[in-house]
């Protein structure tokens, strides 16, 4: 059994019929329930629930404060390489696009690490394009070896790996995995990924579960919002997170809610996911999974991010560049980015903004404790 079986069943739900049958009372009743099931979650994603964003927000805020306090974990992505073997229609890194290709040497990785560490951040997310040839697991592991000197927690957002490969990276100090399905709708998935290894829907879909099996501490899933009907995509994402959390209790499951951004290929989204829609997704998800992490990246504009803090978000990126080497060599790296970001604020600015809202910016929330310690006897 894998999430694929659940997806196979869920995709046959008559979504339209369910949403049309939702009444105000259904929503009010759900808002008083202690534990929500998948059907409740689906109801909260309905068009009718859009009229209840304020009471949903009040509840989401209370739950988030209860479980996470007034804190926000800060992290930043570091792009190691932008070589990619895939043809995703929506991404600048697509093999079809003319783009300056680049991969950091270990010395350059160290320069990047120094530049990021100087901002005080302790959690980092490393990314590569999906090219096992250019960025093999051994290369990622070598980079982790360098980064470990500077950061307490290292997550990866790379092409899907086997359980053994994930375990290999866990062994060298990786503790988090982020991998987006991009689009859960299998037909649309095939359409958007015409060529390259990423075309294998199932291998990608099962990647988060392989990460759990390999003992990643945190696993983040997500759909790239805008590629398909967002209500369904958000529903499948929530189901996926719930499936993983129930099966792998010792892994912290979280979701991300990336909306598609301008990119070199000039792809424009099929579906318009407005700010209100994004808010509804975040709120529904928080009510469905009160203890799960929710990450919001700098794809979103500063003003919106400021408001999202009180709605359930627990992790934010700060001081972001999507350019390879963008933290340490500001001039030379331009034009290698994956997409345009919307919130250009540096770590200090984000920190001040959080403090002004009565939130504590958390720079360190885990410390990699791999490796033998003297006297190890467990």
């Amino acid at each position, binding site marked *: 059994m894998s999430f694929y079986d659940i997806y196979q069943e869920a995709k046959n739900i008559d979504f339209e019929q369910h949403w049309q049958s939702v009444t105000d009372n259904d929503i009010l009743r759900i808002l008083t329930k202690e534990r929500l099931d998948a059907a409740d979650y689906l109801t909260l994603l309905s068009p009718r629930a859009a009229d209840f964003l304020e009471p949903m927000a009040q509840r989401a805020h209370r739950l988030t404060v*209860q479980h996470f*306090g007034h804190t926000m974990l800060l992290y930043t992505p570091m792009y190691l390489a932008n070589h990619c073997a895939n043809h995703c229609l929506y991404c600048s890194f697509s093999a079809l696009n003319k783009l300056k290709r680049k991969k950091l040497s270990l010395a350059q990785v160290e320069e990047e690490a120094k530049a990021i560490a100087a901002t005080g951040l302790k959690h980092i997310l490393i990314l590569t394009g999906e090219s096992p040839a250019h960025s093999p697991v051994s290369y990622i592991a070598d980079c982790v070896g360098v980064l470990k000197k500077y950061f307490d927690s290292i997550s990866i957002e790379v092409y899907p790996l086997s359980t053994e490969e994930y375990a290999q990276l866990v062994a060298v100090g990786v503790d988090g995995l982020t991998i987006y399905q991009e689009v859960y709708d299998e037909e649309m998935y095939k359409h958007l990924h015409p060529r390259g290894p990423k075309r294998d829907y199932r291998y990608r879909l099962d990647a988060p579960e392989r990460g759990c099996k390999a003992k990643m*501490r945190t696993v983040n899933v997500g759909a790239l919002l805008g590629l398909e009907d967002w209500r369904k995509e958000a529903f499948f994402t929530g189901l996926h997170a719930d499936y993983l959390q129930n099966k792998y*209790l010792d892994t912290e499951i979280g979701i991300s809610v990336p909306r598609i951004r301008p990119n070199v290929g000039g792809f424009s989204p099929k579906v318009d996911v407005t700010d209100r829609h994004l808010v509804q997704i975040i709120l529904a998800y928080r009510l469905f999974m009160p203890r799960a992490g929710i990450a919001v990246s700098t794809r979103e504009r500063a003003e919106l991010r400021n408001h999202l803090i009180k709605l359930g978000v627990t992790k934010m990126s700060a001081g972001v560049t999507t350019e390879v080497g963008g933290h340490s060599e500001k001039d030379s790296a331009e034009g290698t980015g994956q997409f345009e970001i919307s919130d250009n604020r540096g770590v200090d600015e984000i920190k001040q903004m959080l403090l002004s809202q009565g939130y*504590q910016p958390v720079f*360190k929330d885990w410390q990699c*404790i791999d490796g033998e*310690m003297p006297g190890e006897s467990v």
Partner: protein
Amino acid sequence: MPNNDKLIIGGQEIGNRFFTGTGKHASNAIIPQIVEHSGIEVITVALRRVDLSSPQENILNYIPKQVKLLPNTSGARNAQEAVRIARLARATGCGNWIKIEVISDNKYLLPDNYETVKATEILAKEGFVVLPYVSPDLMVAKALVDAGAAAVMPLGAPIGTNKGLQTKELIRILIDEIKLPIIVDAGIGRPSEAAEAMEMGAAAVLANTAVATAKDPVLMARAFCQAVEAGRKAYLAGLGPTRDVADASSPLTGFLD
């Protein structure tokens, strides 16, 4: 209350039986204020949040010197991780007290009693003063005594729920049967619930969420300290027996005398 009513853990006297945490505050800067206004003597800190390399972000810098630091192993998913975190805490200069927190369930955040016993055994042998956080279970508590724990910290309700003393009967059994201090940890949402735990004979109460998420955390910490003190006094005074019905005004069996 006798002035000498002190709690002794690991050979150290503790006057204030309300303990709190640091995890959920809007700013670390509030911690010294809480200590100043409530006289709290023990504060737990998640080692995973301690950042020694950055003076402004290092939470330890906010904890006044007179306070006893109780580092915890929050984030540990098994005994091995808890042991490593504990050793790291000691190497970091956090002293030799350690609250074992092993949680391998991210859905309800319930402690893993089995792994907790294992970690306690190892760390007690290494000279740590071990305070394990557990689901209240008599056999587990006995195993913790054998393993060398310095106290047992049963949950009143799952972490962060503020649901109060849901496990009351089980905690009562631990208080009756276990000779170590029983410190109710997690789930306590109101000072009145803390007082109730103390009236039952708990040695101390730890609450973090209830303080950190209050509108005025400093005032709430004081309220908890006072409630814990009141509960302790009531326990020492010996609560009168409870009755199901009022005394009949004229005894029904008086004629037998």
